[in-house]
């Protein structure tokens, strides 16, 4: 589906422990992503219980969310890496379709 000339892409959101942020960032870049957005201090509740948000003097203990947008042909490689990374660690990821106005930024 094309919305008003927007280009379809894939959005990948990954929620992981703070110590895995660098690894996910490397996976994004290796898969060919041209950038990403990181949100630290993510709170919530899920399979592994409650997760507190930002702590006063510990930036590493809370969850982080990393978001990237890539052309669809790069999704398989990225998903394979993230799946493998999370085989023995906590974490979830979501893949969804999104649309962008400047596709050259993401390819």
């Amino acid at each position, binding site marked *: 589906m094309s919305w008003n000339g927007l280009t379809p892409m894939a959005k990948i959101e990954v929620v992981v*422990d703070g*110590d*895995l942020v*660098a*690894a996910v960032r*490397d*996976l994004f870049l*290796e*898969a*060919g992503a041209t950038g990403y957005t990181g949100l630290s201090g993510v709170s919530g509740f899920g399979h*592994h*219980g*409650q*997760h*507190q948000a930002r*702590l*006063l*003097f*510990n*930036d*590493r*203990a809370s*969850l982080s969310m990393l978001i990237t947008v890539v052309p669809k042909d*790069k999704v398989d*490689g*990225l998903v*394979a*890496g*993230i*799946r*493998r*990374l999370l*085989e*023995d*660690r*906590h974490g979830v990821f979501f893949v969804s379709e999104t649309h962008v106005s400047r596709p050259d930024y993401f390819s």
Partner: protein
Amino acid sequence: MDDHAPRRHTDLLADIARAASIVAPQWPLTNVVAVNPLGGLQHLPFEEAAALARRWLGARTHPTLAAFRAAYDRGAITDADLRRAIVDVDWRLATRPGIEAGGTTLAAVELIRIDLLAGPDEPDRQSSDPGTQASSILPAVDELVAGWCAAFVDEAHVPWPMPHRDEGFYAAWRHLASSDRRLRRLAGRRGMRWLTDLPVRAVGGLAVALDTLGTGPEARVDALRGQLGRLPGWAGYARWHDEWAPFDHDGPAFRLVDLLAVQAAVTAAVALGNGARPSPPPAQPAPDDDLLGRRVAAVCSVLGVSSDDADVARGVREVLALVPPAARPAMWLEAHEGNVRDRLLGLLTRLDPGPTTERPQVQAVFCIDVRSEGLRRHLEACGSYETLGFAGFFGVPMRWRPMGSTAPQARCPVLVTPDHEVAERPQAADDPRRFLATRRTNRSASDAFHAAKGGLGSPFVLAEASGWLLGPLAALRTLAPDVTRQAGRWGRSLARAPRTFAAVDAAADPASGLALEERILFAEAILTTLGLRRFGRVVVLCGHASANRNNPHASAYDCGACGGAPGGASARTAAAILNDLDVRAGLAERGFDLPDDTWFVAAEHDTVSDRVTVLDRGTVPASHDTLVAGFARDVEAAGERLAQERARRLPGDPARVRARGQDWAQIRPEWGLAGNAAFVIGPRSVTQHLDLACRVFLHSYEAEADPDGVALETILTAPLVVAQWISAQYYFSTVDPDRFGAGDKLLHNPVGGVGVVLGEGGDLRVGLPLQAVTVGDRQVHEPLRLLAVVQAPLERTETIIQSNRVLRELVDGGWIRIAGRSHGDEPWSLRGSAGTWASWRPADDRFDQAVASLEVS
């Protein structure tokens, strides 16, 4: 193997991240930070993580049975401790039927206790080396790769940088590998030809090398762990680079993928050159089938029955088979920890009278560091001082820029990324130009001297030109360190240092400080976390540092809460914020009743000499000068008493204990945090008048002042976590000084400002030097997991544990033990693994808390 259109290797990068969990990040020498060597495995229970470390690092993870038995012989572990620990490790053993032997019934717990005391030890250590044909080349490969690592890294601006290093380690090595004679000798023509075709990118090179070694995707994590286990020190430094290096770090990029690529490529090339079969993934060593038989024989011998008595031997075997070899040291460790826990909780079992209502004249806030406990105790004995404990960065995460410096340094726990920079500025009345010019000249001379030392021919000229001066000077520094110290002080006094201040107000100095709202926020956080509601006329904020010389690990003795740096700057900054009238007004709006006549004073405790220096003395109002002078006098007396106390624990001349830091040949300037065992969170009234032998971190906490639990959550998720890293570093450096410790200090050779190697090369050494935890064969540090003791409503403590994953993993996984009580008039409880709390009872009913002591026995 052209990779103009590079193949993507996301799955391989993921495997690297998974494999890397077996090594801990290693900070460079400029800021030695204590880390748990098994920190990457903290999501696993302690014993599972220990098993992985034994497998992949070939490391010992518990004291030997012989060491435990020696502690038992000294009385540091009792039979009662053992009986309780056996059941604590495996509760099923409490109800296991015993056996009949010699007309009596012996309970299963007793049989296991006998096995722990008299049974044979397990094989010394397991190894990640599978002992295959290919493994015979690995030591030479590791030596070669370690040499390249040492040539590449640079945290100290080495005079001869490795060419191409701005392209990364793998790329730089790939450029130069063909000229490596040792590699050519090992790899032969075939191996060297294979190397020339390696892809440009490190991840591609690693993929090709692993393919050549026959390592498929399913075996990759194990293979990578095997590689990392061979050079865990260099791998740890690479992890620091990948995950912890500051964004403006200017050293060459030493990444884990580069290290693994070089390691795998050299291994493959050498294997090809030798015709060795590709290395299979490391396998678990075969279990020692005979051990159980020998354990049975030993227990039967103690019982006075023959192991040929089939019924008895079978019964003993069935019981002992329930306790696998790895569970035996776990039981011993549990017993030892239980003994120390009983002693500490015995000391703390008394009615907490709570704080006094009378306004103190002087309050002194010290770092939570165990070394502060002694100083606080002796200071309180000198007069009516109220002392408190707080993480030594005093709640202001910042980058500190000393006067004249262009390189600010983080002064906060490494868990925090500082957002603010605070600069040291000269007072308006003082002209710093002469001082700064003199210092620049001295530094230029020093740089020129060191550059000459590192040159190719210049050392010969340097020796001729300066040997007549440097030789006698070296002799003087060895034989009379006090004289050289005084001469240095005299030299510095020629250009008098200007009086300075911490520029905390960003409105007045755009290049430094914090906005008013941020200053108020930090001030509020400090007072709330301390639970400070009643203020003296003088409140001293005392950081700490360790002035010792010629010591690559010097920063390991500095303040851990300041990221392995001296704590004086943090104390100055916090005091400046809390003395700021605008901040005071903001605090008043937030309900803090800070009297107008309260003045915050910064100080720094030198933990080698136990001397305390009052900082920014010139800014103290005349109205408070008498109180500050009295504090300075009393804290000097307290330091003298503490130094005498420490002298009893240190080898060497007790009369020279305060001068050890000046001695450039001193391998043990102080004990640092050796002996640390517990972390008490509560009001000082819980621990006051007790001698805790400098073994306990003390963090002030007033539950009544923290109804929403925010302060307690901050303490449990930051200072306690840092203390656990310290505790774990001391633990593992003691139980395996070769694998987790830095080894013998006498053999240390610093490399590029990054770390030390033993002798001429090899792996970077992690952890603490042998001399930091032992004297000769005697262990000075008792390896124990940290015990946290919390006086706060148990429901509040439990809620915080449940809400924070890191804390939950530490506590549920047995990395930290927690005891608590809701109020000062209640008995202590212990937290079980399932979040249940049970009343504490000593293992021995005859336990006499009146004579309990925390001295290392």
